[in-house]
């Protein structure tokens, strides 16, 4: 694949409307960079939300599990799929009602921190994100 010298996205993903300051966290969550180039914009002007962070990744399509993690970074995060230089799909990320194995319970004596079991959290309301551990029933605010 030939990558344009100005790093215009040819085939890849745009993660947009990240709250300012969360781009670094998003890179960490997605373990970027991987193979293709990654361009990052931080504190850039946004027509809808004043300022935002934005990440463009060449040659990568995100998996559901990765989208669920990204959704936790803010309430307006969008992901666009670019093919042959054109946006073919754009979705606004939704935090699932139930998160399996994504969050860790902050309660050290929760059974999920002491037995081999996957965590399950239920989302309470919308933003800011609050989740209840279905095991120990403690509430976690992100």
């Amino acid at each position, binding site marked *: 694949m030939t990558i344009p010298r100005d790093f215009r996205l040819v085939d890849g993903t745009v993660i947009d409307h990240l709250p300012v300051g969360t781009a670094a966290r998003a890179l960490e969550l997605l373990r970027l960079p991987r193979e293709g180039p990654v361009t990052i914009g931080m504190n850039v002007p946004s027509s809808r939300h004043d300022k935002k962070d934005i990440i463009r990744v060449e040659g990568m399509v995100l998996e559901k599990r990765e989208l669920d993690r990204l959704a936790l970074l803010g309430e307006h995060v969008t992901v666009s799929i670019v093919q042959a230089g054109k946006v073919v799909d754009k979705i606004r990320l939704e935090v699932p009602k139930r998160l399996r194995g994504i969050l860790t319970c902050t*309660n050290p*004596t*929760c*059974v*999920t921190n*002491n*037995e*081999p*079991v996957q965590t399950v959290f239920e989302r309470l309301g919308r933003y800011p994100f609050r989740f209840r*551990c*279905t*095991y*120990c*029933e*403690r*509430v976690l605010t992100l």
Partner: protein
Amino acid sequence: MQDEALSEAARAFRGRSVVSANDFTRADILAVLEAAGAFEGRAGGPGSTPQEPRLPGRVLGLLFFEPSTRTRLSFESAMLRLGGSVLGFADARVSSFSKGETLNDTIRVVAGYCDAIVLRHPNEGSARLAAEVSTIPVINGGDGSNQHPTQTLLDLYTIKKAMGRLDDLRVGFMGDLRYGRTVHSLAAALLHFDVKLSFIGPPSLKLPPDLRLEIEEAGRLGIEVESLDEVEDLDVLYITRIQKERFPDPVEYERVRASYRVDREALLPLGPELKIMHPLPRVNEVAPDVDTLPGAIYFQQTRNGVTVRMALLDLILGGGA
């Protein structure tokens, strides 16, 4: 509530695990309390008559990974009075758990030996996990500082028996509002009823914000004060123990403990009709001179534990069926 709805709720207990008071609907609560009424006078004590065996040949597993007197013995008494048997351990050191076996495996194994399990475990959420992996019903006998749903049911039964109702009540909670699991579970369960809940405790042991918000949003929040002197008009006062381990400073603990001790004189302004409850054990937060007040119902409260647990076991294991 319609009889049909109650019967439906009662039937739904068959084979069901009881993990958290937060899972109960109003119909669930009323169904258990109604069933408990049928075992009144059959749970031991003066004037009690033996219960006809309703669960012969059924075995209840009591897995107590943490010490307990009331919960374990009252479940054991309840099962024996229903004609069933019990097995289990009261000390995790004598189980395979001490050899490093996971809770998951212990539950799967024990599920092959009995018809229902009562679990007490130090980790919050252990009962939920056990209920997920078990092929038989699991009853939570206390999971760390989280839930103790049968305590909640017996508290509700005690209130209903003493007051004749669960609606139109003013209930005050005093003591450790932050860590006291009995307070959290009972307050949440009472939200199914038309009640006003007030809270009396030190600033360092206030109600968890989420529960407080839930009560406030339900329009059930009464007053929040630091001293019993500031309270008027209560039907029930639910007192809990303030635990030493919650205070890093022993001087602060002694100060708080002394100011949350009630005696006859402190209760006088609240009138003779006030019902005083305590999940026990008490240390010194309720003076012995309170015991003889007609409204002191904490020993009846513990006795009700057997009655309510008989009802719950009967519903879950299909007694008489």
